[in-house]
């Protein structure tokens, strides 16, 4: 049986001398990434937790001021490395908002497809990790199988499996090849069965429910007060989803639902993620069947995206655009303005606040990382639970330390 949350007696500071202080991390298999927790234990019960982060801080925001808008996409890959495609899309959407351009429909559809594939991959890893930490190893293997298919699709799309850097300002690196589209179709056909298997394995598993139900409860009011977004907020009953509320790219064309739960515990978060994968699959299916023809990059006259090779060699506009974009003292024409643009990344609201100063380098590019906001919740969620619940709560928040520390 899950233990009841202890609300009766929490020792005060001066009375804490008999408490155990336990160091959890920074290198521990159950943290999955590099982060450190300092736990105060009374027996096996966690009285308080202090989070120590910054082990993976690599100055991404400082680097953004020294790399141009296309170069920085390689850094966004390394933020949430479980779903790099979603970061690529978020970054270039923000840049395009600053520049005031809209990408062609085919590009929008392809970006939606890759962002949703990234969401499925992210949710698979997150749920698999929760399963693994609570003892369900087979589930982990079942989840990593379809994830491999997603990585094959990414490889067919852009040549890289992990650090994709697929988007460019005003378009994409390459158009989707027929091979990639075929792989996506096959994935759409095969994934529901894998998802059914996964649900049968874990959703009604007695041990898993005991380990996760009623653990780490977040109420709706607290979720709003602490700025929580994404699946963690939706598991607490917040209905906010930017794909519906503020449809960016081509999301308004698709029929899908927002998945919410009321309980706000680890189990609800697991269920929300499982349900969201089905909805993502619906979006991918609609997008791949209605994929519009046409170019993936904005027109040459916009002077944003690199022209095709034949345009460079046989048209004067193509040659001039190529020259303007490649020469180091030229580049993008950016207004002296500031813009905030957010997308619904697998983890929550991933936003970029970009300040342009007229040069091809961002004056400041702030990333609003969902993991950072969610990890601040952790001490609040774990108080009163046992030591073995630490891994369940940590896994269900889906903390990616590279995004947490940037």
């Amino acid at each position, binding site marked *: 049986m899950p233990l009841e949350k202890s609300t009766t007696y929490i020792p005060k500071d001066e009375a804490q001398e008999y408490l155990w202080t336990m160091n959890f991390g920074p290198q521990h298999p159950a943290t999955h990434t590099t982060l450190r927790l300092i736990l105060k234990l009374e027996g096996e019960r966690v009285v308080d937790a202090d989070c120590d*982060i*910054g082990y993976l*801080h690599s*100055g991404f*925001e*400082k*680097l953004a*001021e*020294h790399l141009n808008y296309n170069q920085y996409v390689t850094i966004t890959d390394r933020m949430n490395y479980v779903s790099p495609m979603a970061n690529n899309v978020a970054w270039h959407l923000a840049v395009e*908002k*600053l520049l*005031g351009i809209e990408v062609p429909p085919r590009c929008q559809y392809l970006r939606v497809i890759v962002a949703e594939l990234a969401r499925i991959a992210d949710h698979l890893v997150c749920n698999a990790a929760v399963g693994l930490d609570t003892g369900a190893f087979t589930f982990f293997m079942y989840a990593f199988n379809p994830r491999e298919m997603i990585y094959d699709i990414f490889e067919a799309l852009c040549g890289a499996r992990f650090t994709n850097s697929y988007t460019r300002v005003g378009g994409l690196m390459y158009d989707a090849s027929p091979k990639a589209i075929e792989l996506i179709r096959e994935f759409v056909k095969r994934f529901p069965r894998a998802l059914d298997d996964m649900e049968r394995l874990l959703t009604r598993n007695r041990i898993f429910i005991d380990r996760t139900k009623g653990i780490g409860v977040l109420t709706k009011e*607290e979720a*709003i*007060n*602490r*700025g*929580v*977004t994404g699946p963690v907020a939706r598991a607490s009953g*917040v*209905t*906010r989803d*930017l794909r519906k*509320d*503020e449809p960016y790219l081509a999301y308004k064309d698709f029929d899908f639902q927002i998945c919410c739960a009321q309980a706000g515990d680890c189990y609800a978060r697991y269920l929300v993620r499982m349900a969201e994968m089905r909805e993502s699959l619906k979006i991918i299916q609609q997008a791949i069947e209605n994929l519009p023809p046409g170019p993936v990059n904005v027109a040459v006259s916009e002077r944003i995206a690199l022209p095709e090779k034949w345009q460079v060699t046989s048209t004067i506009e193509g040659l001039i655009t190529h020259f303007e974009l490649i020469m180091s003292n030229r580049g993008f024409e950016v207004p*002296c*303005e*500031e*813009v*905030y643009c*957010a997308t619904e990344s697998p983890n929550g*609201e991933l*936003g970029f*606040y970009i*300040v342009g*100063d*007229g040069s091809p380098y961002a*004056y*400041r590019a*702030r990333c*609003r990382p969902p993991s*950072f*906001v969610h*990890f*601040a919740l952790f001490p*609040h969620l774990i108080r009163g639970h046992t030591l073995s619940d630490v891994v369940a709560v940590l896994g269900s928040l889906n903390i990616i330390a590279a995004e947490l*520390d*940037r």
Partner: protein
Amino acid sequence: MASPETLQKLKERFPEAEISEFRGQHRAVVPAGIVHDVLKFLKEDVGLALIIDITCVDYLYYPNAKDRFGVVYIVGHPETAERMIIKTFVNDPQPTLPTVTDLWEGANWLEREVWDMFGIRFEGHPDLRRILLPEDFQDHPLRKDYPLQGRGERHNIPVVTRDLG
């Protein structure tokens, strides 16, 4: 984007707020003295109850900038897509702002990060420690006068040699 009612209410309550729009986003520049009141008003009376982000921009080398630091608060509505950017300016030598942790618990770490990266002190913050950088770090690295390569912090880390002989 903010709804017209929100902007109307904000204008009536705080006439000193300068509201502008860019690419469909509304931004209000307010004096540092009333930023807490503005955010409290937006949270409690208008319903923008979700703190999305707190960040800062160092305008040291920015063309035509008058003030050094611009602190940006992004607040949103928990149910709709309504969003508003509140911006205020602070200056050297002791850039200080009132904390908003009394309004939002979630502002705690966001303010700590701004302190860590820019050195802006938040008065009344319950736990204003460095968050990403080590405690003994001296500078605030996202300031524009801090070089990309650092000031030798990485090179001066003491190396522990192990005597294997």
